[in-house]
């Protein structure tokens, strides 16, 4: 306690004296979230830290109810500053109950405790913070949430760190800084066990997470196998998923009741009153007279079960529509935001045309920075028919400042989805205030759906070079980023492409746009296949922001010219479907039998080896060196100069793949067929559950995406030839931009076009000039 108080006093004095000695370089007083709260209420924070340290073991009282809060499989906060924010939905009962926020964290040994701080904010208010000092073992922390802080509905939670290295002042050293919080240690504990009870349909949103950050809906359906019920069940899955909006939602369809009262799960019982009665103690009132969809509480486990029932199946269907229908929205009106709040706040704005977004709207706060590597991020979504990856540039209008201590050679880098998109140098020796400095950000790495844009300032300074003791923890701001900065999105080309799994991933397109029912072909109606289909459709609905109407078909012929989904284990699938989505039918039976694995890799390896063996010739070296240089400097390879499209080889799923999502055109080339398949229906269900997790889902792209369970990786087979699918009303400006993008990715065509037109213009000029004016 004494030490801490002393440290605070010193900190206070330093701030005061430095403020007296010289004016702060940026007039942004009061904008220091990391330090300011400490100064206001030091004793409270200290007490809390001490209190939590005093009771290390979390004792489970049966009357308690806890909800896990971390929507990731792991939460890691890295670098000198980092934060994560998301929202948790609470029922009115939960919001009124006294609660504590608990978690355990561990940090890298190089993190200097006296200069590092972990803060937790709930609904924008500081719930608690403390030094980061758990290098040895995970340190459990508990913060009381003051009454009234939590509210019914959406609550924002933000974990924020400021970390400094103990000894090192290099930029590289900042990569060694991390603090991790395991999801199973992080929860809100409500003092009353009654708060676990769900009462209204809206409480589905409070479904929550399990200890691994996942969510599961159990749909118990007596008579599950009846094909006539499938479509309604798929609708229900989507309705529930759209209410839950959780990052990793899985659906488990079965005929029997699962174990109840598990965190992160909701069990729904679906069937006619007659069918569901045996499975439950007491039917909800009116179930035998009309459609009902309501929670009942299981007396044994105290768990809430959602009962969707009615006197007959049509009443059940009506009840299902009662769950799903409110989630619907017009398919042709674009959303303002993509609902990402449960794992990423603020909700991601969707940009469909020219727009200017202020950083303050994007959740980036004004911040002053004292370290060496500043990093902040925000997210912006583009529609499924985004087609500007080859030519487009967005512009960051940056408001920032840096002091004279920042050495020239420092730079700000902009990353889009983890790929570097732009760099600007901070070259002034006297510091500078950048006012709406335009930075071109290539849209090359943009994809449909949310895109994470990160801004990283790498700051070299003289004191850091010397790195005297105390330098890493210095509190002199050297860089500031202001929330008046803007992201300016241009009008970009918009046209759908077929195949394009990125559109499925980003916006559930093209299925979300279909007003009529989407044909769904399941190879058989077993639990696994149905679960997989429900999980996949639910994910599509969340990606697209609206439920999709489904019609179950049994033959590909029934699909006609509609966009169709195929879900099933590989061996049962029709050859037509495989051919259309570009999968080698020869692998239909052999996939999943591990004998022939690795064949192709070895061939490739041998070729590579031969290539290195033969690369002795000086001339060849020169050519290769030139190619490498051009590739490096201008990103031009021989491939970008090809005139004929690459031949599209049929995709043979490798043994390492556990699940394959493939897309192609239907036989008449006027609709999209998407196939979700695996060697067996069990693997289909597991694989679908895995890719439904947003961290994997957002990587789906190309014409085939294969999930490899062993490496937890999604392998993309890029699109080589595609058809355009009109998504926007015809407009000359859009066509122009589409042409620009297409020509930017087919360079030789542009060159050819320009050359041919120039030749024609030359000839036309010559013909005109011989007719006009004097001639001889």
């Amino acid at each position, binding site marked *: 306690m004494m030490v801490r108080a002393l440290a605070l006093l010193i900190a206070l004095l330093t701030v005061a004296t430095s403020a007296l000695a010289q004016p702060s370089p940026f007039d942004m007083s009061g904008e220091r979230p990391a330090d300011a709260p400490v100064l206001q209420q030091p004793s409270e924070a200290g007490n809390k830290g001490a209190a939590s340290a005093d009771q290390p073991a979390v004792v489970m009282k049966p009357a308690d109810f806890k909800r896990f809060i971390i929507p990731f499989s792991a939460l890691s906060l890295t670098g000198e500053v980092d934060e994560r924010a998301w929202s948790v939905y609470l029922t009115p009962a939960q919001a009124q109950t006294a609660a504590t926020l608990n978690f355990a964290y561990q940090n890298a040994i190089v993190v200097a405790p006296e200069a590092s701080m972990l803060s937790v904010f709930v609904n924008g208010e500081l719930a608690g913070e403390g030094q980061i000092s758990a290098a040895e073992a995970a340190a459990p922390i508990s913060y009381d949430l003051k009454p009234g802080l939590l509210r019914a509905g959406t609550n924002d939670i933000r974990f924020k760190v400021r970390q400094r290295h103990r000894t090192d002042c290099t930029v590289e050293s900042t990569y060694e800084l991390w603090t991790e919080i395991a999801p199973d240690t992080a929860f809100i504990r409500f003092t009353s066990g009654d708060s676990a009870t769900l009462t209204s349909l809206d409480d589905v949103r409070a479904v929550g997470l399990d200890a691994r950050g996942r969510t599961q809906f159990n749909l118990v359906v007596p008579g599950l196998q009846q094909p006539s019920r499938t479509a309604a069940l798929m609708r229900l899955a989507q309705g529930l998923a759209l209410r839950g909006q959780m990052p990793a939602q899985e659906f488990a369809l079965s005929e029997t009741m699962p174990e109840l009262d598990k965190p992160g799960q909701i069990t729904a019982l679906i069937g006619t009153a007659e069918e569901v009665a045996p499975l439950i103690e007491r039917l909800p009132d009116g179930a035998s007279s009309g459609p009902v969809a309501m929670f009942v509480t299981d007396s044994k486990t105290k768990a809430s079960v959602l009962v969707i029932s009615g006197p007959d199946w049509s009443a059940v269907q009506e009840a299902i529509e009662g769950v799903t229908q409110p989630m619907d929205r017009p398919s042709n009106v674009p959303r303002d935001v993509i609902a990402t709040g449960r794992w990423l706040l603020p909700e991601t704005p969707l940009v469909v045309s020219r727009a200017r977004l202020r950083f303050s709207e994007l959740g980036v706060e004004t911040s002053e920075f004292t370290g060496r590597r500043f990093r902040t991020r925000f997210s912006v979504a583009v529609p499924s028919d985004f087609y500007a990856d080859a030519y487009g540039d967005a512009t960051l209008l940056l408001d920032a400042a840096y002091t004279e201590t920042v050495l020239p050679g420092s730079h700000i880098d902009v990353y889009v989805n983890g790929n570097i998109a732009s760099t600007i140098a901070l070259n002034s020796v006297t510091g500078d205030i950048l006012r709406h400095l335009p930075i071109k950000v290539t849209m090359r790495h943009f994809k449909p759906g949310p895109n994470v844009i990160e801004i990283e300032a790498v700051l070299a300074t003289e004191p850091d070079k010397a790195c005297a003791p105390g330098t890493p923890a210095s509190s002199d701001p050297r860089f500031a980023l202001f929330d008046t900065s803007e992201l300016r999105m241009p009008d970009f080309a918009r046209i759908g492409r077929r195949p394009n799994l990125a559109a499925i991933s980003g916006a559930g397109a093209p299925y979300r746009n279909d007003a009529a029912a989407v044909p769904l072909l399941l190879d058989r109606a077993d639990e696994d296949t149905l679960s997989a289909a429900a999980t996949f459709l639910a994910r599509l609905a969340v990606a697209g922001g609206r439920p999709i109407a489904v019609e179950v078909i049994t033959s590909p012929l029934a699909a006609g010219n509609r966009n169709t989904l195929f879900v099933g284990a590989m061996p049962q699938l029709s050859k037509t479907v495989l051919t259309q989505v570009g999968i080698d039918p020869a692998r239909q039976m052999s996939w999943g039998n591990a004998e022939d694995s690795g064949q192709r890799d070895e061939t490739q390896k041998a070729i590579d080896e031969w290539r290195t063996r033969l690369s002795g010739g000086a001339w060849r070296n020169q050519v290769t060196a030139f190619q490498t240089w051009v590739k490096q400097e201008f990103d031009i390879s021989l491939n970008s100069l090809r005139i004929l499209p690459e031949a599209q080889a049929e995709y043979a799923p490798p043994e390492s793949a556990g699940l394959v999502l493939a897309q192609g055109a239907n036989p008449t080339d006027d609709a999209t067929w998407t196939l979700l398949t695996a060697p067996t229906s069990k693997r289909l269900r597991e694989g679908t559950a895995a890719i439904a997790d947003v961290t994997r889902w957002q990587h789906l792209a190309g014409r085939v995406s294969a999930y490899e369970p062993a490496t937890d990786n999604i392998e993309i087979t890029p699109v080589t030839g595609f058809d355009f699918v009109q998504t926007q009303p015809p407009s000359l400006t859009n066509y122009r*931009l589409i*042409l620009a993008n297409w*020509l930017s990715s087919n360079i030789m065509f542009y060159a050819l076009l*320009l050359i041919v*037109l*120039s*030749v024609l*213009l030359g000839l036309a000029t010559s013909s005109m000039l011989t007719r006009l*004016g*004097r001639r001889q």
Partner: protein
Amino acid sequence: MSKVGSVAAWAFFSLCVMAVITLPVNLQTQLIVSVLIVTFMAILKLANAGGRWRLIALAFGTAVVLRYVYWRTTSTLPPLNQLENFIPGFLLYLAEMYSVMMLSLSLFVVAMPLPPRKASSISDGKFPKVDVFVPSYNEDAGLLANTLAAAKAMDYPADKLTVWLLDDGGTLQKRNSANLVEAQRASARNVELQTLCDELGVRYLTRERNEHAKAGNLNNGMLHSDGELIAVFDADHAPARDFLLETVGYFEQDPKLFLVQTPHFFLNPDPLERNLRTFEKMPSENEMFYGIIQRGLDKWNAAFFCGSAAVLRRKALEESDGFSGMSITEDCETALALHGRGWNSIYVDRPLIAGLQPATFASFIGQRSRWAQGMMQILIFRFPLFKGGLSIPQRLCYMSSTLFWLFPIPRTIFLFAPLFYLFFDLEIFTASGGEFLAYTLAYMLVNLMMQNYLYGSFRWPWISELYEFAQTVHLLPAVISVLLRPSRPTFKVTAKDESILESRLSEIGRPFFVIFAVLFVALLMTVYRVYTEPYKADVTLVVGGWNLLNLIMAGCVLGVVSERGERAASRRVKVSRRCEFGVGEKWYPATIEDVSAHGARVQVFGIDASTVPTDTEGGIRFEPYSGSGTPETLPVAIRNKEIAGDITIMGCRYLPQVARHHSLVADLIFANSRQWSAFQSARRGNPGLVRGTLWFLWLALYQTSRGLIYFMRSLRSSETQKEGA
């Protein structure tokens, strides 16, 4: 295909090209396209493809230029909120856009220059009456005598030809001047010229007051004469014998023809040519204008009157009340007025007169200031784009001719733009290295190639830039002052008879040394910054490279303003003409090797050189082209001699005693216009872009050192002068 159809097709393809060019394709595409197009253009150029291929190559070039313009406009301007960058950045942008506009106008003008015309013939006995006007202000009698004699000697029926000396140096106003010296001089001149004219059979005419300068003088001539056609020669422009025969015939073919213009061919180098020693091997500056541009203008019926060496129709001039005198370039203004009234002009691309051009840099600048100011006045007073009566091509042609003279403004901007970055760290052009390569470099290369394609054998690489640079410093204030007060400038006669006997710095050369010094400091700054700020070395190198280009240019101009002394006062013309050389009573067979306005070089056979000391008086006897067929004698004095076996080469100086002797001199020099064509075509070789650039670099290096040496010398001499004082 009809005219309308071909224009429609052209417009359609232009639109297509524009549509493709304004597609926002990515940098990689631009890079590949640039490389391909530059390669294609280079191949076409190397193959020296003409006709259609020439226009295709130009279309290629246009595509790259337009890509540059599109990119420059959409993505390189500094943000508006950085005014310190934006204002200079935008000025630079405007300067570049001006250059692009001038490029497109000149492309229009010279897209398909008319090939040389077939000679016109005059129907038998239908020779129209011609008045030849030789306006003079202060030229000396000797110079006028040559011109008048040459004019008088033109092949044309004598009763149809009247030569007028329009003397503005001996007007009543001048003779009665309050300034006694001036009055005396004017009276003496009046008497002297009257005598000369009487001897040559030329009419002398002067007037009461010097109103409206040259235009007024010519109009006065018109009042006193009545010929159907009027030929105008400057006092120093002597016509060849066939001048009228080559030009008058066209008036018969086209009754609406008001002008036949011929090129100005100069016997002496301009100060740049003299100081850079390029006169013998490189085409003259004005050859681009007369060799290509006037031919291009001629295609659009927009060839304009250049003040001399032209024949005009009296009827047309009378319709517009004579020569216009609103601007100080009355020639172009008159042509503009008559074109506006539906009259036609043609241009005959064959040198038919030979003249002198200003010898010193100062008078060269004086002449150019007059042209620049006059063209600006036309631009302001008669704005050709909206002038009624002109066809659209004529409007564009006149806009091209007048707007050209705004060049000092963009030149100045290009000169100083790099300094903004090098000295003040202002970023007035935002582009990455890759973009610079793909857009700017391609643009510059294509620009050079297009220039070379268009003007190759008439203008060597970088010479246009050199001439513009050399004029910019002094023309900038002239152009700006006329823009501010359009009616202020008045006509000043360009002195052309000066000669430089001693090497010295031009009296107006100082600013160039200052500029050179500043650019040199900028070069040092570049090196310094590359080393101290390695993180932005790429930008510094690009901007520094631009500055280096300016420095090379500025260095070369140092040579231009370092005036070389020269021994021969005027240029020699090769003639190879049989004659006899006589000393005392003895005549030897001889050949005239070359002649100048002051003397001749004669190869004499069989003379004993020792018997004829220097300054011996003798004579050259030859048969003049213009005479009756009998040989006539021109008295000379021997200045030097050189013995080569049987042959002695004598340098002689003319000693003209009577007017007829002037006619003989004129006959020697000016009689044969084919010599001039031959001389011109000997210089017309296209060295190509690479060789031309290397040559220019060498030239610039050499001239820089020469300029600096002259500068040192001038410092030393001024010091010794001070010491002496």
